[in-house]
């Protein structure tokens, strides 16, 4: 044989030049960036693109949700899976696999965005004879790739503070990335979001599931609301500016709160700004809303009524603090309270029926029709990553915290819009005097619970670690206890500390 015969190539896999040979390839590759949000792997539920993490765990939303909800008053999980008990009890270690998973998944999406940016430079387009309108469209894709990258850097900024930092200038290889400080990362995310503001498609003009200016503003508003935490410098005025841009962007509240979290959320929905999309037969995933729905119910809660006849995982429910925020836990008055069960008090972590089940998310339409599902477990419910209600509350809180450019009166209008929808009438409406800063933490609990905001909110209000606010098993005791303040940040995962000698661990770990 000839020695060149030893060069063999795979049957079905291809090179970058074939993937990006034409504009369709660019569009598909852009979709791949979004797909990283909604899937654990390009081959569906059985594979994980996070090494060393079970495919069922490797979904972005599941990991993000776990880091934002399980360590707070809003959720607790019955399972003994490695790393869950310590998240339940605010005693996570540097080895926690869910935190490592989130960190890895966020950086993976960044790495993929960087690859897309490298392959879509004007020079690359020219070399592949892609010009004119196609090139213009791809320039917009680039802005979206940068948005997705900025979003994931925000996740890291918020959760881990000082992650490794890679851009399209860092080629694939073994050279360990440098670490970036939290304040420098804030500046980077801010500058990126501002830089692409004009390059993204105009607000409410992009396809369903893709980011436009609305998403960019919404993330900027969220970023500025928490600037005090991230950098030590408050930016409430800027929060008001960008929340207002969203609010004036043409969005409107969906009439019925519950319909934001069932299959009707794809119909006549002007509230949701950006979604993560799920599909129970074409994009299978044991994370995402499949996880949110199944883990919150058991086999004897009539899973069919949740659109998952083969589901029910007996895991997540809420600690008693969340239902206590509502006038009643049955949703009789404030219809946002969607709970199931009889015992609100959590006495035992491992007992699913200790604590009320949260049945907000459903894989059925309001009329009870389920979506097709390959196995009776996978959900087709899309998840709202950004929605208008959050922007109302950002506006109000930033005003309450002294930001300029908004008014208390306007804030009251927004809050009462939410409460009128919640109560179905004006009975829940408030007066301006009620809108203290602390009010917003509770109102965010009522409006946004289980949507991945809680940890960020508790940190911003100084209640995530200290003893002023407790929940069962905070700090490992049933009564709840303060935990050290360094736990306001998650640790850099031990695995990456070992692999990457450039990293310095967050203080305290």
């Amino acid at each position, binding site marked *: *044989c000839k020695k060149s015969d*030893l*060069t*063999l190539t*795979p*049957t*079905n*896999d*291809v*090179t*970058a030049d*074939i993937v990006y040979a034409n504009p369709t390839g660019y*569009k*598909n*590759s852009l*979709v791949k960036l979004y797909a990283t949000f909604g899937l654990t792997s*390009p*081959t*569906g539920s059985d594979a994980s*693109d*996070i*090494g*060393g993490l079970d495919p069922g765990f490797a979904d972005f939303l599941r990991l993000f949700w776990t880091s934002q909800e399980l360590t707070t008053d809003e959720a607790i999980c019955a399972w003994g899976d*490695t*790393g869950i008990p310590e998240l339940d009890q605010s*005693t996570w*270690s*540097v080895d926690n*696999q869910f935190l490592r998973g989130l*960190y*890895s998944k966020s950086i*993976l999406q*960044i*790495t*993929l965005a960087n*690859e897309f940016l490298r392959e879509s430079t004007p020079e690359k387009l020219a070399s592949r004879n892609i010009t004119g309108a196609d090139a213009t469209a791809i320039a917009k894709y680039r802005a979206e790739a940068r948005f997705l990258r900025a979003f994931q850097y925000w996740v890291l900024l918020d959760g881990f503070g000082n992650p*490794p930092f890679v851009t399209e200038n860092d080629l*694939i*290889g*073994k*050279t360990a*990335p440098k670490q970036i400080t939290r304040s420098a990362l804030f500046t980077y995310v801010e500058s990126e979001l501002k830089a692409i503001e004009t390059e993204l498609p105009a607000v409410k003009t992009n396809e369903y599931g893709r980011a436009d200016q609305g998403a960019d503003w919404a993330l900027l508003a969220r970023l500025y609301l928490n600037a005090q935490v991230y950098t030590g410098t408050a930016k409430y005025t800027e929060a008001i500016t960008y929340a207002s841009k969203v609010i004036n962007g043409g969005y409107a509240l969906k009439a019925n709160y519950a319909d934001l979290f069932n299959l009707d959320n794809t119909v006549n929905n002007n509230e949701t700004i950006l979604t993560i*999309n799920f599909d129970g*037969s*074409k*994009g299978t995933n044991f994370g995402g809303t499949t996880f949110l729905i199944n883990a919150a119910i*058991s*086999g004897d809660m*009539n899973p069919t009524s949740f659109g998952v006849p083969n589901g*029910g995982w007996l895991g997540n429910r809420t600690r008693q603090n969340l239902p206590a925020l509502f006038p009643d836990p049955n949703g009789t008055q404030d219809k946002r309270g969607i709970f199931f069960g009889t015992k609100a008090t959590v006495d*035992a972590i491992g*007992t699913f029926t200790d604590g009320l089940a949260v049945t907000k998310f459903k894989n059925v339409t309001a009329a009870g029709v389920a979506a097709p599902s390959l*196995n*009776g*477990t996978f959900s087709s419910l899309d998840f709202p990553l950004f929605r208008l209600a959050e922007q109302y509350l950002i506006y109000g809180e930033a005003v309450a915290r002294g930001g300029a450019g908004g008014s208390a009166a306007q804030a009251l209008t927004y809050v009462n819009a939410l409460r009128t929808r919640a109560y179905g009438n004006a009975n829940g409406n408030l007066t301006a005097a009620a809108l203290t800063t602390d009010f917003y933490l509770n109102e965010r609990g009522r409006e946004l619970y289980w949507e991945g905001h809680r940890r960020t909110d508790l940190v911003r209000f100084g209640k995530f670690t200290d003893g002023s606010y407790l929940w069962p098993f905070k700090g*490992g005791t049933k009564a709840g206890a303060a935990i050290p303040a360094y736990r306001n940040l998650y640790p850099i995962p031990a*695995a*990456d500390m*070992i*692999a990457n000698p450039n990293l310095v661990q967050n203080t305290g770990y």
Partner: protein
Amino acid sequence: QTGTLSGKVVDETGLPLPGASVQIKSLNKSTSTDLTGNYRITGLSNGSVTLSISFVGYSTLEQVVAVQGNTTANINLKPDAQKLNEVVVIGYGTAQKKDLTGSITTVGSKDFQKGTITTPEQLIQGKIAGVNVTSNGGAPGAGSVIRIRGGASLNASNDPLIVVDGVPLSGNGPGNVANPLTLINPNDIETFTVLKDANATAIYGSRASNGVVLITTKKGGSGAPVINFSTNNSIGTIAKKVSVLSADQIRAYVNANGTAVQKGYLGSSNTDWQDEIYQNAFSTDNSLSISGAFHGVPYRVSGGYLDQQGLLITDRLKRATGSISLSPTFFDKHLKVDLNLKGALTDSHFANNGAVGSAIQFDPTQSVTATNAFGNYFEWMQGALPNPNAPRNPVALVRLQDNNGNAARSIGNIRFDYSFHFLPELHANLNLGYDVSKGYGQVRVPQYAAQSYSTQGSYTQSLATTSDKISEFYLNYAKNVESIDSRFDVTAGYGYYDNGKTDFFTPSYRATGQLQVQPTFPNNTLRNKLLSYYGRFIYTLSNKYILSGTMRADASSKFSEENRWGYFPSVGLTWRVIGENFLKDSKVLSDLKLRLSYGQTGNKDGIGDYDYIAKYYASSTTGQYQIGNQFYNYYAPAAYDPDLKWESTTTYNAGIDYGFLQGRIYGAIDAYYKKTKDLLSTINIPVGTNFNNLLTTNVGNMEVKGAEGSINFQAIKSADVNWDFGFNVAYNKRKVTNLTLNPDPGSKVGAGNITGGTGITLKYNAVNQIPGSFFVYKQVYDGNGKPLEGVYEDLNNDGVINTSDQYFYKAPDPNFTFGFNSSFNYKKWTLSTVLRANIGNYVYDNVSSNFGTRANLMSSAGLINNAGVDFLNTNFQNSQFLSDYYIKNASFLKMDNVGIGYDAGKIFRNKATTLRITGNVQNVFVISKYKGIDPELTSGIDNTLYPRPRTYTLGLNVGF
């Protein structure tokens, strides 16, 4: 030139030895004895000739005979217990046992494990020091894990290279057969030769790090056809069931502790679910062979038919095998041709193994049947549907799944060995071989089966083919130079290996015919090639000092052009001390040989065929993403390492071969040290540097230290009574010494999960630990020694119990393995046994940790389950998966086999018909502190093992 030499060759008791080889080397004449032990060599001129007579198991005799016309010379051969003159196959050639320089052990068919053995590797279980063969369970034809000296790799393969009659097996299986080796009929195998140290294996270069197993099949004889028929008929019974609570215990427990609702779930039956799914398994294994010589061409033709049931109802393997071996010679024996063809067809029905675990967990108070829409099998319901949190009825799992597989395989080769007319010491050897297979399977579950109610049943198919081609050519020059009392043996060769496997993808359907999942591609081919040059040099001085060296250069398609070539040298030095004058006349010592060797071997198996290439892979039909109203397929970049290269293992070996009392006591002792560098390990890489946070790359070091010894003892040796013992022991310890680019003692990577929760990693590869060590919490016990639920020691003293308090505790590797076999022979009766023991191997009791909790027994999802009896010790509410309480010492002593044979010999006065009757029991007993079903688990995680049967076999062997 009309002289003829003839005579009879007989054994020590005067019985004829048919098939003995009789040679006059100087004249290049040879023959073999016929059935009555007679030989005849014609065309001799008068004068003295040296006759060389050899027979397997006997000392080769060189006798000078003066030929004078028609001369008669009768020969008495003496048995050679140690078989020092036996010819042993080594890589690319043969050698006499006494001249071996590497650590090599051969087991012949006489010493194989007896009874119902359906897969070849189990023939040598317990027979060779340092070679562990562990079956994967008791399913018909189930494969085994073979480990020679523990294995030298982490994420690359730890399987040895297996070479069948000169055809190296790639390890590609066609699927739809329990184990690809099952496709070779064990009855056709003559010998197993295991190469252990690098001096022996390095000639196989890149595939040699985990040892090499050479399998030689039976060949043709000489003279009239000899027909042999053997039949083994057996019944397999369940040796041990998992201890679970009885129905009455469940009722008592729930009535005492349950809620009114839970009490209402209890049934009134007493069902032993394990009895419901296991059966006595019958099997019949029949072989017919004819061997002899036809017009001077030795041939052997054989056929076999096996029909084996499994313990699990509906499990069944049917196998037909055939083989042909021809060994003609041409040009006055200058050209020897060796043709081997083997074929096998299997037809399997695979039982749903999910029933094994379900039978442990299922509530014994329920009856098997009920009146419902799910085939009338009892199921836990939730409204009109099966409760999704419940296990499914074990009997229904088996009965309502129809999983059939067919596989076909053929291995063949033709070898030409030409001894040059002008230079007979020079041989040219060409070996052309193939190994092709095809496997097809289909699985059907009906629409009404509870196990797939959510998909309304299922219909899936699978199809795969493999095709391996090899071609090898070598030249060998061997010459005795008596003037300097030396022998030179030089080999140089070339090899080319092309291995391919193609998987064909078919859509899956619901039982209703509705399409479930459509594959993205019709098929996928995985292919790799290897190009090799190799050489060996053996220099023997005075029959006492032997220096051997080998070198192999391999180029693999699995690596980029820059990293493609690997070079694997070895050198061995041997001193046959017994040949020295001061020992020559020793009455006590009959053999003493010292061996020292060093060598490097490689490994590349177990990694993908294209891992070094930057590539994008396509999303599947279940990996689409929705944008707008459209679902998109796309390509995703895969993580890759362009710098992948060979993993390389350096082995040092020192050994002694010894024999006492004319070989009545003999054996070998070896000590070795293996060091692997550039380990192909899957490690954490700095996140952000590739398209995954884990990458298989050349990082890390591992070392293996070990020693092994064997002793064989003919305790009694007489005409009527013989008693042989064989005993072997091995110590082996593996340790990971580095796993990162920047060495860090804290690095670890998951190496094995448990069943129960999700993503619970129990085993890790970690620095300074045995690969696959258990990483657990340290359990705290109360004063009575009862484990306190969820209470663990705060090992790092930071005031909180979290994953930072886990520690490494024990590993599945045994420290010591022992094998013992004995054969007692009285006249026509033979009694034999094989025992094995492992010491220091630990098992994680996943059955107890998963099922032995109150939350499982009285599930909050509205059903009752059974629990393992260990629940009565712990009384745990919830699973405590990572407690070291569940890590148990699983040292064991097993009697693999006890058998009795009656050799009736000739059963008719005037016919050559012989008869042998055997009775065997396999898996006779297990002695172990471990309470689970079986302590012998390669993975170290006991999770619903398919029970290994206790098998009773009656065998009949008839020769004509």
